[in-house]
């Protein structure tokens, strides 16, 4: 066994002082296996050493919360003993190096986090961010990631019901792949990772351990350089077929009463899973690595402990239940091995070929892991841009809307989601491409809505506002389908935390998320942090992705976004001030950058949303769509295209000009469609609640018109909007 020294520790991604701390704690030099275990547990990905103190501030409580952050996934109550287990997780670094496997194993990993808790996965979502459309790598990365997500999710047979795809040059060297899964569980049958009891058998199940993914978590905690291709072997290889078997076998075992605790082997594999289980149970754990089923010959203890081979689980069983459990895994043709036991030593002890090869107090790895209070700088609110009449003089509404509808960040993403099985399991009642995906809770009248959002442009301009905005947008997506917003999961994608500016972006986005989620009673119940999304000194824009879920107690009352019937009225809920800074319009049409993002008014946000739910519960709303990127005219166009209906827009009132009105990205707004006979009643109710609304127009024929200023046929705008991505990918 090679001698460990400071240089070897540094090669493992540890800092000099961290290595010194290890030697001090152990009162000796660690051997190579022990060093490997420390480096896996102390890297940013597993230890959250830069983020921990800030994550503590997140709003994580609420009557609906059964399990907040700290477990494999969050759990929320959806009434009648049903609960939803859900989480979002990043797989950014591996997906850039190897897009298919990186994305596929991202999906596999998050599904395991969910079924580890006893839940059957019922929906997958994803948020993917790529570099500029002109960048040489973008097309291949996009194609690979989409195939990877589909390849895994389709095979398992879990529908991919919603997602988000963004393009921005800040992701040229670091794409983002965030995968989210929802699972359904009986709230009295949730499984946790906390081990309990001494001398309980520790069981390894699933795939065999190979040399893939060694140091994956360390790789995900480092910035990229020119030699990135050399890191390919650190990317894990997924096998969705095995995962499907593992899912069914685990759920079969969970139906009985033999499991004390269960944990999937994700980042840092056997190391983090065994240590987490023991640490949570305040126990020790003893593992005989000779008994671990291996795929390759002559694997060393070091390799076995650090492998990130996929589709593996660690289970602590009730003593004496081994045979019963083994039968189930035999039926599903999966490996099953008793590899150790729980102890009261509070140490992790590893044996290999009858020799002890490592012994570390669990405290050193978990509680004593480094925690940093990194320096950060507060962002200033940028000055507003001043727009004059000249800016708009030569503009035509029709040209503007055509250009915006074919913007990569607006254009239809059907090319992507047609490659995902979104209807398997027979409960998808709202497909991708709407405000949120909706799946029924099988065999009940309930349904769960889910969506993922991010707003890197706003977060980049002003992290605090951006953090709030993205939570609000998620909340609006729930409201728009008629669901009561329940809780969120966040995937916090940022640059290098050792840089004050990046760290500041993180701290303030978290602050924004916290403020909004607290006000809206939309708590964060799970999530992860991905730092070091940086290549050669260029970091990504701060990109917190928020995955939200909501509950429909009667799925038949779900609302969709396509326009329904001629003669119905459209109202805009929420006030339009014409905020253009940081909008798609400012960027694409005015070529203006900078300025503050639109302001968030949480009071209005909540009032507007709740009053829409109220209208929906009284069956007064035919259609609803939240107004987001691209403003009112973009929203109306999408509603028109989906419903194959036109709109006659009424003259706007107030001080803003028509470009500001139609393309401004003010927050807290929705467009709703109302039957003429309900109009009076709706107006009365909105006024009673002091909700600002404008009468926007009337549904009519197959074109969008605004006096003599605008006349476009739905077929014309549909073509550009629907075909942009397909053409981009084919050419």
């Amino acid at each position, binding site marked *: 066994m090679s001698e460990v020294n400071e240089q070897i520790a540094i090669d493992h991604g540890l800092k000099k002082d961290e290595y010194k701390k290890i030697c001090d704690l152990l009162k000796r030099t660690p051997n190579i296996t022990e060093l490997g275990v420390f480096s896996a547990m102390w890297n940013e990905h597993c230890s959250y050493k830069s983020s921990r103190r800030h994550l503590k501030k997140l709003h994580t409580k609420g009557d609906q919360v059964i399990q907040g952050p700290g477990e494999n996934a969050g759990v929320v109550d959806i009434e009648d003993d049903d609960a939803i287990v859900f989480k979002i997780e990043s797989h950014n670094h591996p997906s850039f190096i190897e897009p298919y496997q990186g994305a596929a194993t991202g999906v596999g990993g998050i599904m395991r986090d969910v079924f580890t808790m006893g839940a059957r996965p019922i929906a997958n979502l994803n948020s993917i961010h790529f570099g500029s459309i002109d960048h040489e790598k973008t097309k291949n990365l996009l194609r690979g990631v989409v195939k990877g997500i589909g390849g895994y999710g389709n095979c398992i047979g879990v529908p991919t019901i919603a997602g988000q795809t963004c393009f921005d040059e800040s992701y040229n060297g670091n794409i983002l792949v965030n995968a989210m899964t929802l699972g359904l569980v009986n709230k009295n049958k949730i499984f946790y990772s906390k081990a309990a009891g001494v001398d309980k058998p520790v069981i390894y199940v699933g795939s065999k351990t190979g040399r893939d993914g060694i140091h994956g978590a360390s790789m995900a905690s480092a910035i990229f350089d020119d030699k990135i291709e050399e890191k390919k072997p650190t990317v894990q290889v997924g096998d969705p077929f095995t995962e499907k078997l593992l899912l069914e076998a685990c759920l079969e075992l969970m139906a009985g009463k033999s499991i004390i605790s269960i944990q999937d082997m994700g980042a840092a594999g056997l190391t983090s899973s065994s240590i987490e289980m023991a640490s949570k149970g305040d126990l020790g754990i003893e593992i005989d690595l000779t008994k671990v089923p291996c795929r390759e010959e002559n694997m060393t203890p070091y390799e076995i402990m650090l492998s990130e081979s996929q589709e593996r689980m660690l289970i602590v069983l009730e003593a004496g239940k081994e045979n019963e459990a083994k039968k189930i895994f035999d039926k599903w043709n999966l490996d099953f091995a008793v590899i150790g036991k729980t102890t009261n030593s509070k140490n992790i002890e590893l044996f290999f070929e009858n020799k002890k090869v490592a012994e570390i107090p669990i405290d050193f790895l978990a509680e004593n892991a480094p925690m940093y209070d990194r320096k950060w700088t507060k962002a200033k609110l940028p000055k507003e841009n001043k727009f004059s009449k000249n800016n708009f003089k030569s503009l035509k509404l029709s040209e503007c809307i055509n250009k915006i509808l074919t913007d990569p960040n607006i254009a239809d993403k059907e090319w992507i989601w047609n490659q995902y099985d979104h209807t*398997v399991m027979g409960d998808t009642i709202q497909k991708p491409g709407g405000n949120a995906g909706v799946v029924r809770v099988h065999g009940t009248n309930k349904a769960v809505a889910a969506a993922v959002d991010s707003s890197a442009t706003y977060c980049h301009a002003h992290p605090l506002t951006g953090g709030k905005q993205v939570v609000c947008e998620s909340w609006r997506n729930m409201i728009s389908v008629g669901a009561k917003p329940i809780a969120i999961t966040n995937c916090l994608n940022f640059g290098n935390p050792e840089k004050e500016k990046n760290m500041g972006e993180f701290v303030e986005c978290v602050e924004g998320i916290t403020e909004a989620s607290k006000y809206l009673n939309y708590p964060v119940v799970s999530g992860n942090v991905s730092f070091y999304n940086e290549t050669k000194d260029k970091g990504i824009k701060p990109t917190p992705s928020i995955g939200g879920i909501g509950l429909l107690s009667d799925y038949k009352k779900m609302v969709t976004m396509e326009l329904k019937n001629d003669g119905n009225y459209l109202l805009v809920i929420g006030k339009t001030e014409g905020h253009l800074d940081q909008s798609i319009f400012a960027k694409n049409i005015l070529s203006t950058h900078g300025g503050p993002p639109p302001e968030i008014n949480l009071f209005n946000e909540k009032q507007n949303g709740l009053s829409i739910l109220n209208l929906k519960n009284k069956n007064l709303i035919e259609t609803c769509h939240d107004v987001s990127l691209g403003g009112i005219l973009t929203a109306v166009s999408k509603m028109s295209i989906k419903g194959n209906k036109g709109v006659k827009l009424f003259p706007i009132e107030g001080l803003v000009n028509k470009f500001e009105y139609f393309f401004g990205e003010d927050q807290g707004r929705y467009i709703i469609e109302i039957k003429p006979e309900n109009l009076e009643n709706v107006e009365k109710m909105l006024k009673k609640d002091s909700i600002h609304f404008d009468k926007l127009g009337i549904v009519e024929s197959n074109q969008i018109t605004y006096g003599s200023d605008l006349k476009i046929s739905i077929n014309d705008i549909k073509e550009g909007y629907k075909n942009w991505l397909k053409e981009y990918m084919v050419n």
Partner: protein
Amino acid sequence: MKSSVIIFPGSNCDRDMDVALKKFGFENKMVWHNDAEIPKSDLIVLPGGFSYGDYLRCGSIAGKSRIINSVVNFANSGGLVLGICNGFQILTETGLLPGILQQNKYLNFICKNVFVKIKNKENKYFKNIKKEVLELHIAHNEGNYFCSNDELKSIEDNGQIAVTYCDDKGNDDEPNNPNGAIKNIAGIFNKDKNILGMMPHPERMIDPFLSGEDGSLFFENLIGSL
């Protein structure tokens, strides 16, 4: 009426099929691939999914599994055998149906609604369906049906083409072919028409809140004709 749905490792539309069969009145049983016997049934269904992870070739390993002998015997004695998606692939692998299913023409997985034209109603699967064109749903990566010219002539002569991809008016031409299948073939029978393999999933279209309801017509007819 009694039906049996076979579960292979990697099947993932087994539950959906079970739900659909029961909804339309079948007394359905789930049968594990490693069982030797199939309970007494009027209909056996091979469901969609990724049996054995699509390793080797889609459906090939399932086509050699223990239960398949019973399926073949049942089919050869005239029993109704329905294979959907991966089930269709398994039926071609066992030789119960002619031809093969290749990767889709544009090499992508496709999940969307399609229209299919019913080409032959003189069988228990489509007999009393009033419509000529059904809206169903596909979700596959290997649905590109192919067979030799001789086989094609033979299946055409014997009226073995069950459904073809088309538009809402029933034009089953090239622009309405989602995956490159020869002659737009979406499903075929054996000579005796007791075995049907098709790529589209009727079990995903049995409720107005899902992608559509034409799947209901398929199951209503099926239980009615048994």
